Every structure is written in C-alpha cells, then in structure tokens.
C-alpha cells in the first residue's frame, strides 16, 4: 500500500516537473512558430520534378546541432542564430533552375529574418574562444552545403537536396528551442 502511494507521488512529481517545463517563454514561442512556418513554406516549394535520389550527399551535421544536451543556454542561442543566418544566405542564391514560386521564397526569407531579428537582442555579447570554434564548425557545415550548390551549378537536383537538408535544419532548430 505504502509502495503504491510512493509510486503515485513519484509519478505525480515527474509529470508536474515536465508540465512546468512545458511553459515556454515568449522567445521560445516566437521561434517555434517561426520555424514551423518556415518548414511549411519549404514544403510548399514545388518546382520541376526530377529524380534526384542519386545525388544525395552527407553534409555532416555538426554535433552542436545534433546533440544539444551538452550546450549551455547562451551557446544554444548562438547556434540557432548562426543556423538561421546561414539558411538565410543559402536561399539568397540563384534558384531559377528550380521553378520555385518567388513569393514563397520571399516569405521564407522574411520569416527567417524575423527570427534573426528576435534573436539579435538576446545574443550574449561575450565571445569566448570556444564559441568562436563552435561557430567555425557550424560555418563549415554550411560551407559544405553552399560549395555543393556551387559545384553542381545550382541545378534543380542540387537545390532539391539542399531543400531537404534545410528542412532537417528547421526540425533541429525546433528541437534546440527546448534547450533555450
């Protein structure tokens, strides 16, 4: 009987702590909405159909994005900031070969820029050697994506692969929001 009581209390505590942690601050809510909107916009980008499965490539997502548990809170803000800036830069490139709706891409850029605008004020100005090195690893990942696009001469297939990778990026960002 006592064991059952203790178990019930323990379960209640567990649920209440998760329930408490589920209350997000306004930055998290805004980022979450923004990332969802961007992901939805990405899915709407339908251009010329082509079989591009052969062109898949592993861009080697850095561990800061894949395993954010080891990051501190300020570093997570930096990671998301860097990711959004680079996604922004990627979609500025020439996508004429894809036949994408330009208004959609403009919306995507505008929405991403809004998230950057939100994060800018929350960025901790203190820069450490570790944060610079982390920044470098993130930059290398996006450099690989942009280099791939350039090597493939911004072809339709190359953009499709990149579109998929950026969609993955937004799902990573949504995961990272929990660590803010």
């Amino acid at each position, binding site marked *: 009987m006592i064991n059952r009581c203790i178990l019930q209390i323990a379960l209640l505590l567990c649920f209440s702590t998760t329930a408490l942690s589920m*209350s*997000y*601050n*306004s930055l998290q*809510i*805004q980022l979450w*909405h*923004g990332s969802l909107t961007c992901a939805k916009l990405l899915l709407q980008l339908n251009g010329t159909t082509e079989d591009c499965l052969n062109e898949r490539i592993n861009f080697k997502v850095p561990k800061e994005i894949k395993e954010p548990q080891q990051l501190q809170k300020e570093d997570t803000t*930096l990671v998301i900031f860097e990711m959004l*800036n*680079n996604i*922004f*830069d990627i979609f*500025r490139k020439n996508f004429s070969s894809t036949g994408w709706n330009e208004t959609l891409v*403009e*919306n995507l*850029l*505008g*929405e*991403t*820029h*809004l998230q950057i*605008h939100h994060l800018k004020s929350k*960025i901790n*100005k203190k*820069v450490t050697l570790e*944060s*610079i090195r982390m*920044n*470098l690893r993130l*930059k*290398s990942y*996006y*450099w690989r994506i*942009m*280099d791939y696009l350039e090597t493939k001469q911004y072809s339709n297939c190359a953009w499709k692969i990149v579109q998929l990778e950026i969609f993955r990026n937004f799902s990573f960002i949504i995961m990272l929001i929990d660590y803010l």
Partner: protein
Amino acid sequence: MDDNFTLKWNRSNESVPNVTFSADYQMSEMNNWIQLPGCQYVADTECTFSFLKLNVLDEITLRIRAERGNSTSAWYIVDSFIPFLKAQIGPPEVHLEAEDKAVKINISPPGKQMWSMDRSRFIYSVVIWENSARTEERTETVYPRDMIYKLSPETTYCLKVRAELPLQKKVGVYSAVHCVNTTAENKLPPPENIEVDAANQNYVLKWDYAFANVTFQAQWLYGYLKQFPEDHSNKWKQIPGCVHVRTTQCVFPQRAFPDRVYFLRVQASDGNSTSLWSEEKEFRSEAQTVILPPVLNVKTTSHALHAYVGASREPVDLHRPLIYEIRFWENASSAESRILQEQTDFTFPNLKPLTVYCFKARAHLLGEKWNQSSDFSDVVCEKTKPGATSRTWLVAGICVLVVSVPVAVYIVKGLLRCLNYVFFPSPKPPSSIDEYFSEQPLKNLLLSPSEERTERCFIIEDVRSMTVLEEAKGTGGDLRAYHSPTLLLLGEPPAETQHPLSRGLPTSVSLCRKRIATVFGGISRPFPAIADGEAGPGVPL
C-alpha cells in the same frame, strides 16, 4: 588581411647569394603537398598568396625551403592554422551621394573569399564629421545601403567606415576618408516623425508635415533586404491606401502585412515637384486579433482556492504568449486584488475561511509594441472551506470521539449490570455454593431448577384411599395443590421401585420429608419435622 596572406621568414645565412624559396601547402584532409602559387622561387624573404578557391574554414599547413641551383634545403613546416580565424577584416569600399540634409552611403563589404559567408553579417561603423570642425565627430551604425540623416545643407562632410564581425571578435580596418558636399536645401522638405499605430484590423501611418496643399505617398520594403549590400532601390513597393493622400496619415489593412520586419518611407508632392524621401522607419508588424474573454472555473479544496482559466475557443495562430489576469474580492467588500501570470492554474492560498470570494478573469496579449486585452469573463463566486486550524481541531475532535465511544459503551454496560444486579437479581445462586455442597444429587437439585425432576411421593394415609400426588413439572418450585384430602407431599420416589405399599409406611414418609426440607429453600433452616404418624388431614401448603 582579407584574402591575402603574407608569409615572412628569416634567412639563416644572409651572405649566400642566389637563394630562392618555395612554399607548399596542405589542407587538413589531403595527403600530398601542393605548390603554393605566388610563392615559388621567390628571392625575397616574404611572399603573398591568396585563398581563393580554397576552403578558408579548413586547417592549412605550410612548408617552405630554400633552393640554390639544384640543391635544396630541408622543408621547414609552419604551424598549421585556420585562415578564417587568423584573417583580419580589411577596409570596405565606400560610395557617397549627397542630398540636402542627408547623405546616401553605399558600402561594399571587404574580401571576396574570406568573408563570403559573412557578407550579410557585417556591422558597419561610420565616423562622420564636418570638414571644418573636426571635433564634432559622430559614430553611427549603418546598413550597407543606408542614409545618414540630420546633416546641414551646403556643408562638407567627411567620413570613414569600418566593418566588424562582433561574434568573431573581429574589428576591421578603417577605410580611406571620403568627403562630400551636401546640396542646397530643397523647397519641399521630406515628411518627419513617422509613427505607426494599430486600430481595429488596420495600421495607421502618421507623419508630420509643415506645409499644406500637398499629397503624400508611402512605400514599404522587406526588412531583410537592408542587410545586403546589393541595391534594393527598385524593391520598394507602394502601400495600398497610401498613394496620393492629402492628410498626414493613411490607413492600410493588417492583412496585407504579415508579422515581419519592414521599412516604411513617405514622400510629399505638390504637383510640380516631389520632396526627398523621409527617414526610413523600421516597422515590425504585429497583427491584432480579437481576444475573447477566457473561461473561468473556480474550485475549493481544503487548503486553498484554485482557479483555472481556459481559452473559450482556439486562438488564431498567435506568435505571442497570453498572460492571464484574475481579479478577486470578498463578496462583502469592494477592495479588489489581482494576480497576473502566464500559467492557466491559479492558487489563492491565504484566503479567509468560510468567506465568499468572487473572481473574474481576462487575457492579455503582449507584443513588442502593442498590448491587447480581452474583456472580463463572467464573475464566479465561491465560498472557502474552513481553515486549516479549525480543520485540525475537527480531526482532533473526531479522534477523541472515536476513542471515547467504546469507553462510554463499556461504562454504560457496567452500570447496567449493576442495576440489573440490584433490581433484577438473577435466580441463579452464586458459584461459591459449590464449596458447600459437594453432593451430587443435592447439587443437582440446587443448581438446576429447570431440570427439577418430578418426584412422586406416595403417601398412604389409609388403605382405603391412595392418592398419587405429583408435583408439577419443575419451573422453579411451583407447587400445585391437588385437591386431595390427603397430605400433599412431594418427594422423589425412593431408589427401590417397589411400591411403597409393599414396604410399609414409615419408609416412604421419611423420604418425602427429606425432600420437603430441601425444596422449601431455607438451606439453613430445617423444616420442622413432621412426626411420624402425626400427619393429620391435609395441611395446605
């Protein structure tokens, strides 16, 4: 600096002539050394090379050796480094265009390869001063294509710009000083003090203007375009409802501007000429939605009062959190208190017990610029339960009751027993009789009146009439007199079954007598013996 790196080295022996140097490089994942272009067979002790076509984020290792004729020295391997981390930001290119009270600035970011990923991330810092009065310097942060306002017309201004990457802790080198003359003042000044307000489902754009009889037009631009050094002058679009307006304000629907960052500008026109554009105002649109009052539930528990608010319907995709406010007061008084919080569960712990409190709730939507509130919900009143202290008394009282009831029952039982003993004695003799009477048949007689056996006594008074008398069955000594002229006697028939007549009279009489003595109580009181032969006519008993 930027894309160009300079490698310097020292010669070990200065006097030897005809010595040249060559350098190779190797990237982190390569296995072979590649010749470094621009650093082959240099006679000098330094060479410059650039990183075009290379990944500047990757680690690079250099090696260098000296040559003379056909002989070469050993390779000297330079410590590996990451070009991006080592590079310094060079001076940006600047172009200026003067207006009457402003200068249009056009900055081209430094570097081609090195900063290719950070081109839109540079923060440009401008130092501007009047050429004549150098002391009045002003520093501003500008976009790559921006305007510097608040200048005087017909004055020479000079400025210098540098690019910074704060997140990399990099500060660039200042550009060369550029000077420009502002033009004469324009007849039509541009509108000033642009403000945006939200009303109903529209935005209201307001500005100030000194002169009358002019029409205005307003334009907007996507905010993100300002980040880029490319020309965006052709990307400005007309705001619907704000073309050729005569008033110093215009209204446009919120629907047309989803929640983003925009820039707005206004221009005045008097038919013949147009003014210059006003200052570009950054505008962060925040769509206003109707917020319905929340649904309020109040529950009382033993310790406190809990209130739960819920949205009456699913809200529109709001990018901002809702804050809930509950106001409460005692039903009797009118003094209100209020609690504001983001969670939907409210607890009111320190309320007076057994009092009626009334509650009403509303929701607030907090934005960057504008706050919206819903109306209040319906008032809900609840009475608080008894307080915790009286509750403990209650619990204590119950415990005392639980303990005292069996005790009381026990006491009452004891009393009843006493009463019973006093007023309604039990016919049963006490058990101490056992000590005195150990004879079994006597004991039987004494202790089991219910089993009183019928005794038959035969008294033969005379030969003529013989009556058998019987005692009524044992109900504790109930004697019944039979109408008989003879003596009524009770007794157990003797052990012999013989008819007493056969044995003679005296035997039976003595036995009966014994019985009479015992039956008529008086254990201590012997019955006066009836003399033999003296039995006269029936003695009623």
